[in-house]
């Protein structure tokens, strides 16, 4: 550690730190625009000037390396005057349009101009004006406001891995642009809005909606993928107006995928806000009591084996537990949370978990991805892989993929083969990458749902496990077997046992008349049209989508923004979300609906409060006893069951056809629809 004195305060900082980091360690706030903790140092805004003993000029602290015994002064007359001068230069070309700027109230330039700005401008000439650029439907640009900090260039190049932004021309004519009028091809483009310190890049869908001080902030968890990104829901009145990421270094650092961010305008469209029952083939509005009694009547005399339930991909653990318990009360073994038909051995948790952990990616030194396209299935996790790839340096983090993805993974990945037969070749050491895995200290294998949703999914999982054991990736201090989930509710569903019991039917078995009464809880992503014509369908959910269209009774549930809930991400991390807004109309929290119905059905569920329900969940699975997460190694290398099918040679197919339209909420979102039209449809049409 290096000893540095900052304004008389002695601090110990790691060697190689910058003067700015030393100042922060001493609790001094240094103004900055271009410096960002997670991006490379550019040093071009000059706002972070400090004085250093022995130096004749102020230095930019963000890029100034510390040395032992260095003395830094952050609050001298020279520093203050230098910063005031920098601010004056920055403001020369910055328009005075704060009243109509969406960044107003959360603008770094605005805030710092309060500290270092002058009360008037001495600049009499014309300000420069820059034409706005087209960066796609999500990021709105007002480039005249740009102060050229280049954070967006560095973000797109370094983090998002799509080097599409740059600074063209020079001097006064320097412009931040993509040069070609083309939408940014990143699933992380919304983060540009957050990192832009001024109002140059703002949110297009949120434009002119609200001021930051009007918004009520609620901590929540993103359920659009299984990463469990920590988010803040910002609401005014009854509507969530925007979603921004919350910093959690263990999960999402400070990034959020575009779907999780911009899905918000689907929250109040196509909502189911009252119960409906089907009368003479047409859905009619009904009261809760009528809806419940209709279901209870229909259930009378139906044996448990003829009742089934399917849980959707966005459910919270509480609802899943209540559904599981209700089916238990009704004597039904037919319950499934795997709409996509994925196959897992659920006998042990590490057979279906991202065991290495998202933070564990930073420690890995070789990666094999099997039947997964992380860029689409979990963009934030993919950014983590990319960061590891970049940090490790050329050739130090070899990555290979089995299953040829169409999308650029944003890092160099060797495609070993198209189908799972390649795994056999790897195990036999026939491919050079086998040696790479074997020589790696911490190898990682990611199995995606492109593999697990196949009939031979379990056999592939076992083959991956065997390979992991073979390369010593499963040991007490490192677990290199990873399942990358795509559904936010899947981990909780598997943990809480929402899989068919003995002689129970899975999703496919419940279709085509396999059951007489089918309870869908937010389930829209399966072959709804294959439900038997005589099956009585109850749809409990928040959006009028495929499931609701087929339903005989609709029970209006709520969105993740409207209920407190527990979510488990793909690495098994249990996280809590809070209620941001009240549900619309007569919609109710899902577990309360199930609890209320259980009483009507005469089989009362034994919990009346969410605390009691959470205690029940903790009893069902010990991981839910507290909101915490520890990464575990494995002492038991027994492989998962291989299932009945042997590994076939057919190529893997991507599980996500359209990143922007994967669930009912984004299908109700005009923004997601636009994105799909711009990004996905032209590509699919070109492929056809």
């Amino acid at each position, binding site marked *: 550690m290096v000893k540095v004195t900052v304004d008389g305060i002695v601090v110990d900082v790691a060697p190689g730190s910058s003067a700015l980091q030393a100042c922060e360690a001493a609790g001094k706030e240094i103004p900055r625009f271009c410096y960002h903790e997670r991006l490379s140092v550019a040093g071009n805004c000059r706002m972070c000037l400090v004085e250093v003993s022995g130096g004749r000029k102020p230095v930019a602290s963000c890029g100034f390396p510390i040395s032992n015994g260095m003395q830094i002064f952050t609050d001298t007359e020279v520093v203050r005057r230098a910063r005031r001068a920098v601010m004056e230069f920055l403001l020369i070309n910055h328009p005075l349009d704060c009243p109509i700027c969406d960044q107003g109230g959360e603008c770094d330039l605005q805030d710092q101009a309060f500290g270092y700005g002058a009360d008037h401008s001495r600049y009499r000439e014309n300000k*420069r*004006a*820059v*034409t706005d650029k087209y960066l796609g439907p999500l990021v709105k640009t007002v480039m005249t406001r740009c102060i050229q900090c280049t954070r967006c260039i560095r973000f797109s*190049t370094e983090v998002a891995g799509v*080097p*599409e*932004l*740059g*600074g*063209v*021309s*020079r001097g006064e*004519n320097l*412009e931040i*642009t*993509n*040069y*070609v009028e083309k939408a940014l091809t990143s699933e992380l483009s919304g983060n540009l809005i957050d990192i832009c310190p001024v109002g140059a890049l703002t949110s297009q869908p949120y434009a002119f909606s609200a001021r930051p001080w009007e918004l009520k902030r609620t901590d929540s968890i993103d359920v659009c993928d299984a990463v469990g990104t920590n988010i803040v829901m910002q609401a005014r009145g009854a509507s969530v107006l925007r979603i921004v990421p919350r910093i959690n270094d263990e999960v999402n650092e400070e990034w959020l995928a575009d779907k999780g961010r911009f899905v918000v305008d689907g929250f109040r469209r196509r909502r189911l806000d009252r119960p409906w029952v089907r009368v003479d083939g047409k859905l009619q509005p009904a009261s809760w009591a009528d809806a419940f009694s209709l279901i209870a009547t229909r259930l009378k005399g139906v044996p448990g084996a003829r009742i089934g339930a399917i849980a959707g991909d966005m459910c919270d653990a509480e609802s899943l537990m209540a559904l599981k318990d209700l089916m238990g009360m009704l004597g039904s073994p037919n319950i499934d949370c795997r709409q996509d038909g994925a196959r897992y051995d659920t006998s042990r948790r590490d057979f279906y978990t991202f065991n290495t952990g998202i933070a564990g990616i930073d420690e890995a030194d070789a990666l094999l991805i099997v039947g997964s396209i992380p860029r689409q299935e979990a963009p934030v996790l993919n950014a983590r892989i990319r960061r590891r790839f970049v940090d490790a340096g*050329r050739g130090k983090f070899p990555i290979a993929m089995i299953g040829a993805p169409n999308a650029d993974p944003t890092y160099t990945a060797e495609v070993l083969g198209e189908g799972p037969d390649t795994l056999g070749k790897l195990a036999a050491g026939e491919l050079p990458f086998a040696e790479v895995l074997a020589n790696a200290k911490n190898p990682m294998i990611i199995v995606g749902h492109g593999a697990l949703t196949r009939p031979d999914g379990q056999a592939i999982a076992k083959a991956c496990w065997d390979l992991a054991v073979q390369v010593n990736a499963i040991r007490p201090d490192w677990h290199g077997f990873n399942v990358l989930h795509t559904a936010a509710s899947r981990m909780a569903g598997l943990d809480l046992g929402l899989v068919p019991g003995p002689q129970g039917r899975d999703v496919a078995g419940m279709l085509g008349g396999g059951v007489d009464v089918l309870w869908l809880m937010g389930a829209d992503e399966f072959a709804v049209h294959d439900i038997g014509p005589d099956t009585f369908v109850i749809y409990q959910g928040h959006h009028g989508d495929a499931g609701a269209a087929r339903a005989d009774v609709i029970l209006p549930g709520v969105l993740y923004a409207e209920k407190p809930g527990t979510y488990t991400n793909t690495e098994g991390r249990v996280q809590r979300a809070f209620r941001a807004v009240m549900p619309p109309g007569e919609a109710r929290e899902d577990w309360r609906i199930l609890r209320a119905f259980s009483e009507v059905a005469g089989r009362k569920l034994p919990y009346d409060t969410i605390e009691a329900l959470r205690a029940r969940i903790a009893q069902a699975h010990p991981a839910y006893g507290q909101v915490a997460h520890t990464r575990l190694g494995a002492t038991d290398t027994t492989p998962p069951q291989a299932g009945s099918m042997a590994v076939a040679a057919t190529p893997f197919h991507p599980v996500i056809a359209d990143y922007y339209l994967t669930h009912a909420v984004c299908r109700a979102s005009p923004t997601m629809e636009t994105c799909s039209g711009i990004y996905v449809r032209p590509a699919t049409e070109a492929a056809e």
Partner: protein
Amino acid sequence: MSTQPTVPTGAEPTHFAFDAESEQQIAVILAKYPPERKASGVLPLLYVVQKQMGRQTGSAWIPRIAMDVVAERLEMAPIRVYEVATFYLMFNTKPIGRYHLQVCTTTSCWLRGSDDVTAACKKATGIRAFGETSTDGLFTLTEVECLGACANAPILQVDDDYYEDLDGPRTLELIEALKRGERPTPGPTIDRLNSAPAGGRRVLVDEAAIKPQGQG
């Protein structure tokens, strides 16, 4: 004021490929860099593009499609090439005339009469302001900063050639010659060898003094 190149509609070609001559030059250029660092060759490659466009179309400029070809050849992101090409004023990102007249107007040239050179250029070509191309498409007039030949001020750079020690009438003459399709010899337009004194040597004229060293 946006400097995003506004290439006239229809001027942007839809296809660009290096010809045999360019390929030969590229092979020489890329041999200088280790393969994983070949992005360093972006500047010389852009020059190759500009030269080839000059040969093929009579207008030495770099269309965007060509920048994409360079990016592909050097395995770098296209935007990185756009950044370089737009940063350096030596690269023309818009079509230019057959001859690129670059008048130096920095102090030395200005003191020595670059205003006359500029006026002569405008008169001979019909161009009204810097940055414009003459109606016959032959000339583009550009104002450039110091060309580093102050001893021979004022200077007019035509494409890659320096015409030095100019004045108004000699500039007119030069442009008329270009119009006729001639290429006068570059260098001083007065009686002078390179930067040597006008009218011949003035110092060290005595024979003894010019004896090679070590013999005296």
